[in-house]
């Protein structure tokens, strides 16, 4: 785990099949400062290897707005991993 000075804490949400693959709907995680959403996903894909296969069919949001994978995270951000939407 990174030292306190170098780490940020973000809230993470999983929806749809991602929630089933991760076995959880939400999490709170410590990351290195300057980590982006891509790095956050990679960290979960290490923990839940099945997640990796969904990478190309997932979009991410940061603070309830769609966000690029390269978005740099800040402490307190709420990141969600969203499979293809099927409302309506």
């Amino acid at each position: 785990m990174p030292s306190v000075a170098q780490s940020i804490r973000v809230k993470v949400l999983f929806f749809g099949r991602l929630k089933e693959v991760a076995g959880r709907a939400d999490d709170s995680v410590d990351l290195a400062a300057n980590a982006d959403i891509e790095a956050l996903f990679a960290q979960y894909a290490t923990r839940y290897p099945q997640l990796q296969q969904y990478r190309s069919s997932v979009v991410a949001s940061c603070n309830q707005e769609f966000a690029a994978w390269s978005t740099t995270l800040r402490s307190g951000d709420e990141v969600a991993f969203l499979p293809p939407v099927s409302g309506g």
Partner: protein
Amino acid sequence: MAAPITDLIKLVQEPIDPAMLAAHVRGPGDGATVLFDGFVRDHSKNRRTLYLEYEAYEPMAMAKMREIAAHLHEHFAIHAVAMVHRLGHLEIGETSIYIAVSAPHRAAAFDASRYAIDTLKRTVPIWKKEYFEDGSVWADGELPPVPSATPAPETAS
């Protein structure tokens, strides 16, 4: 980007009441409402559907639905919008999405209604799981368009 006060945007667990939504959008200066009622089909890809479960990323879904309503007001000569999506367990034939758009003239109401449902299906974080006799699947969906670069983020704390 708040929707005007006359709009009604909701996520609900209970059955949707179409008459209430139709009445909500009607104004004395209007001449037409177009109503879109989306409900649970009894089949999906040749399999018999038993029921559906909808889930949402609720605060973001509400924000995206309000954005759609705001877009309608900006781009079409409409009066008011009601847009309600139901979540949870839905039986065959039950309404999952109801959109009511009123306008002085019909063309704007048609255009706005169609834009609303098309955009909702592409961009609002709601997911449908289909239950069949021999199992369940998350419905194929659409991947929302995402900014390719990072917009300047709001500081979150």
